[in-house]
């Protein structure tokens, strides 16, 4: 059973076809990169998959379940996690508080109106573990708005990965990271067990070809090519879009 099946997915914004008739599927454990020029509909596709916006037409199935009409939080509960292209964090809260919100999402603590957040030793211990991995524990009491851009990008990834959702949508995760950080991110994703299925949008071709087993090219909202990295690299249409041709 594929981890994700997308059939004829379309989204129109007042006559503009942001995504039109896109069909593809992703096997469990697969790493799929989505590329395409700016405005190709990559982020819109992620918005549709994660349930932030509803499609005009088409169907999305995750882990064998039709999720086309499910709200975002239910998709998350089914195992879908995502990062945001434009850093989407709780900027006036601290690094630790941000991480706790990610960890708290799968428990019942969110309905406890009495017990102080600061008393959940186990959650805080888990947050320490996660943040240490990224060297952010020493910054735990810093408000996110005071972090450097690179640190914010890291936290963006930390929040999503800490939840251990098996289907990950990563929207330009390495954008804003230093080359070293990007490299360690790539090796981290490569080191993931095959329990994780990863969909990745990125502009960095090195990152893409390091991680992806399949590449999908979007162009003006339409699926142009879907294949292995080599197939995509050699595709004439893709070369035309990315390199331009002599007319």
């Amino acid at each position, binding site marked *: 059973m594929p981890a994700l099946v997308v059939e004829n997915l379309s989204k129109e914004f007042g006559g503009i076809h942001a995504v039109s008739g896109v069909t593809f599927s992703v096997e469990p454990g697969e790493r799929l990169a989505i590329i395409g020029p700016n405005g190709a509909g990559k982020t819109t596709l992620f918005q549709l998959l*994660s*349930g*932030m916006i509803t499609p005009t037409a088409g169907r999305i199935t995750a882990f064998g379940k039709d999720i086309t009409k499910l*709200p*975002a*939080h*239910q998709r*998350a*509960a089914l195992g879908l*996690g*995502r990062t*945001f292209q434009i850093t*989407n*964090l*709780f*900027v*006036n*809260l*601290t690094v*630790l*508080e941000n991480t*706790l*919100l*990610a960890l*708290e*999402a*799968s428990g019942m*603590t*969110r*309905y*406890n*109106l*009495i*017990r*102080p*957040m*600061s008393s*959940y030793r186990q959650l805080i211990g888990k947050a320490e573990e996660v943040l240490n991995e990224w060297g952010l524990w020493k*910054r735990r*009491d*810093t*408000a996110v708005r*005071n972090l450097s851009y690179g640190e914010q990008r890291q936290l963006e990834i930390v*929040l*999503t990965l800490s*939840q251990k959702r098996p289907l990950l949508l990563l929207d330009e995760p390495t954008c804003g990271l230093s080359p070293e950080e990007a490299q360690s991110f790539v090796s981290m994703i490569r080191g993931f067990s095959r329990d994780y299925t990863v969909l990745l949008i990125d502009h960095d071709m090195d990152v893409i070809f390091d991680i992806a087993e399949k590449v999908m090219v979007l162009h003006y909202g339409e699926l142009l090519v879907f294949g292995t990295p080599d197939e995509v690299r050699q595709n004439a249409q893709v070369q035309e879009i990315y390199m331009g041709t002599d007319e």
Partner: protein
Amino acid sequence: MMKTTRSLGIPALLIIILGILPLIVPPYYTGLLTLMFIYALFAMSLDILQGYTGLASLGHAAFFGTAAYVAGILNVKVFHGPHLGTELVSGVVAAALTAAILGLIVLRSTGVYLLMILMASSMMLWGIAFKWRSLAGGDDGLPGILRPDLVFMHVDLKQTTDFYYFIFFFFVVGTALMYLVVRSSFGHTLLGIRESESRMKALGYNTWLQKYIAFIVSAAFAGLAGVLLAYYNGFVSPAELHLVNSAEVLIMVILGGVGTLFGPAIGAGIIILIKNIVSGYTEHWMIILGAVYMATVVAAPRGVYRLIESLVKGKSQEEEKSNQ
């Protein structure tokens, strides 16, 4: 927010000072302080929505007024006398229930739309109270609400000082409960919604449900304040449900400091003080209130509470955070 349990020193000191005050100040001021406690509860309850969840409301009077009317009607029309437990619980439950019904309809909208739709809803209730003469007394209001009888505890609530302690008790308990809520793991998710609702959804939170619970909890505390006001005044009028009341409590919150919980209590104190003291000298007390409001916006745009906090600590929170 994650600071380890702050020492109980300052709250204990405040409770002692406020406990002694009615023995020192003239009865008029004791009465005024009593009123401040009631509005402080009301303002803090709004802060749960405004400051902690990021939901602006110009209709919070709906819950305050509904509770006041329910307690008042029970007192005057049903029991023909005070029945503290029943009136208090009924008032609070009525406010919570109003929020539970209203929330189903209005919480799909956010921002200025939510603000307007809540305003409209509360004015609808105002309209009902204004017109329903047989039950609610219409535009004359509902007079003759008797204060609870606690003689068995050797307390006479007709006495200004005794009544002060009665309200003070609810003020302390209500404040403590609201403090627990905003510091709880539930309260933590409200902050997340305030900061970024889309991220909360992506993390797996049913943000609607969290907001719905916050809405009901906030309304219940507004209801507590409403019932207490009914006892304080001895009557309920449609003014309790009016937009002016909603706007006033919103100003209390902003003046005191949005998202600080205790700030709005200070804001309530300041506005009640200005309203009552200045109006003794001039009918144009609104001008003074406006001036104070503008001065606060200029001198302490993030509210009186944060101004005091930064004065005490010697430097602003910003510096502190960025120095880390």
